[in-house]
């Protein structure tokens, strides 16, 4: 009885939003799913090829001597796999920042961005897991973590929070997708039978009744609140993998926030890149507007400043004291062998994004995209600088060892696998956007209905 009334009400509210406009919006947002162009197909083929190269490299690594295929030695026994793992965990916080935080703080411009952020988050956290397995000496014993797991070990904490975060992110990605699945089912045509069947199955019998909407909204709200502490936990626990050791370089109470703030900076940079790419590739200029770049540019400045603040705490405070424990490591970063990389990361990955986007012209799509790509690359090397030089300065000096034991530089096999993790991450995001609308139709429409112009309009 009462539900019928609300249904009627909704029909009337829909009228303030012309049916034509709504159909056009659906048409535009479903276009990437409806038709995959030649370039789109080539892009997928390219990503698959890189992934295959990675699988082959992993096969080589596991079947031959790791002493030959991998540059890891007793002192730097964690290399690019682990720094790549940290990078991907950081990247997965994009879902927390660009979807959950904006949503809860009512920044309405999150609406076209949230699904992009959540897909990247899910893909990144999966590839973080892959990176860890690639680093393992005995991946055949992976299941020991379940049957012999020790709750005292930070690795077990990390696995528990990562699995929880993957599950929560998947659910948080899936629940707002349900209405979109129904839309796909109704509007897509000339698609294979299995694909239509998949939409039907996954849409859970969605009919768009007010009661269903009510529950959907409530669940999204619960999950959005829950995903924030979870996201912060995964990266804090990842920081603890380092901070719980007795090594001076990592022995820092600052480490959790330092990692999380770095992840937020990376999240904004990755969001800018993703927005720029989707905008051009899928002709979504109407939904991903210069306004979004402007807002993200400002966010980039804020996150850079926060990250700089934690870097000052992390490096300059010990540097002021220059205790014997930190000396070797800090001097190596400031003036030693790793100095060029260190200062490049400081300028390119922190100071540049904190200052350049202050100029309004730099917050335009193209310049901001270039800035974001530099930040993105610098962020990867930042994780490299945290992991590898941190291992090369143990308390007891490294003496009388072969040259390769002292200086680590990743092997071809390692870099191929790292490249493949990036390709796989992009492949997951690409494939998702080819099967499901990458911008949530209903969320954007709903925002428009509520008269929130700032979703897509430049203000």
């Amino acid at each position, binding site marked *: 009885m009462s539900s019928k009334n609300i249904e009627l009400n909704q029909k009337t509210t829909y009228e303030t939003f012309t049916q034509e406009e709504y159909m056009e919006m659906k048409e535009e947002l479903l276009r990437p799913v409806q038709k995959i162009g030649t370039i789109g197909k080539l892009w997928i083929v390219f990503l698959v090829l890189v992934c295959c190269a990675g699988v082959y490299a992993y096969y080589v690594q596991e079947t031959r001597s790791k002493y030959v295929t991998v540059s890891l030695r007793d002192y730097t026994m964690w290399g690019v796999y682990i720094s790549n793992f940290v990078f991907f965990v950081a990247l997965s916080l994009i879902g927390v920042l660009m979807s959950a935080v904006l949503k809860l703080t009512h920044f309405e411009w999150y609406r076209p961005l949230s699904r992009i952020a959540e897909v990247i988050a899910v893909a990144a956290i999966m590839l973080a897991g892959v990176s860890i397995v690639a680093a393992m000496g005995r991946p055949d014993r992976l299941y020991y973590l379940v049957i012999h797991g020790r709750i005292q070990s930070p690795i077990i904490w990390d696995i528990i929070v990562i699995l929880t975060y993957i599950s929560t992110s998947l659910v948080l990605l899936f629940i707002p997708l349900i209405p979109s699945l129904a839309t796909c089912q109704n509007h897509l045509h000339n698609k294979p039978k299995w694909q239509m069947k998949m939409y039907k199955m996954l849409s*859970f019998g969605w009919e768009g009744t007010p009661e269903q909407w009510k529950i959907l909204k409530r669940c999204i709200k619960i999950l959005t609140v829950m995903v924030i502490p979870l996201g912060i936990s995964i990266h804090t626990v990842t920081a603890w993998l380092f901070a719980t050791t007795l090594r001076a370089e990592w022995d820092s109470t600052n480490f959790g926030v330092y990692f999380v703030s770095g992840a937020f900076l990376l999240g904004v940079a990755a969001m800018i890149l993703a927005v720029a790419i989707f905008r051009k590739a899928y002709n979504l200029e109407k939904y991903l507007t210069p306004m979004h770049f402007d807002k993200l540019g400002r966010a980039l400045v804020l996150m850079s400043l926060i990250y700089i603040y934690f870097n000052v705490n992390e490096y300059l405070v010990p540097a002021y004291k220059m205790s014997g424990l930190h000396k070797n490591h800090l001097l190596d970063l400031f003036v030693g062998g790793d100095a060029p990389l260190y200062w490049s990361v400081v300028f390119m990955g922190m100071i540049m994004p904190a200052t350049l986007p202050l100029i309004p012209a730099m917050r335009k799509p193209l310049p901001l995209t270039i800035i974001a790509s530099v930040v993105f690359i610098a962020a990867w090397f930042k994780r490299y600088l945290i992991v590898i030089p941190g291992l090369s300065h143990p308390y007891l000096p490294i003496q009388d060892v072969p040259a390769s034991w002292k200086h680590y530089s990743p092997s071809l096999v390692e870099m191929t696998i790292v490249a493949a993790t990036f390709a796989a991450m992009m492949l997951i995001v690409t494939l998702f956007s080819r099967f499901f609308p990458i911008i949530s139709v209903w969320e954007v429409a709903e925002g428009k209905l509520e008269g929130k112009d700032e979703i897509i309009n430049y203000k």
Partner: protein
Amino acid sequence: MKSIIIKCLAVLFLVATSFGRLFSQETKMTLNFTVEDSVKKCNVSVTANDTAVKEVEVKLYVKRLYSLLPIGKAAVTDETGNATFDFPNDIPADLNGKLLVIAKVEDPAAEVSKEVNWGVPRAEIAPLERSLAASREKAPYYLMIVSNLIIIGIWGTLLFVVWEVYRKRKPNYSK
């Protein structure tokens, strides 16, 4: 494990003493333990073909896992072929306080050993405590309780949300 070691020691002891007997038939040593005014004394008498051996250097040891611990300084036998050692009170021993005391003469090579109840019995080794460094079964209670509460809380919420959405998949079913 302990029984193996004891058995092995016993066999080795037998072997070692018989070994000694083979090569030094004539030199004979005896060990005697006495307590005088609460001072533990260990008397070694050396005889060769039933006559006392004078002015020969005797060393006293306690058997340890890897080696023999010398007790005091080497003593020289007197007219009667006797050497006396003060035995310390603080030699740790097994659970029963038993020590294997060995006396040796280098020239002519001879030795004798005897068990005595003079050691400080060691305490039972307490099993390893629950700690962060202990094994999986010995995780601290607080850690297990806190981690399980967090896991149950978060996964409970997650499953609840999934169940809610699933339950309402066909509006007519829920009624």
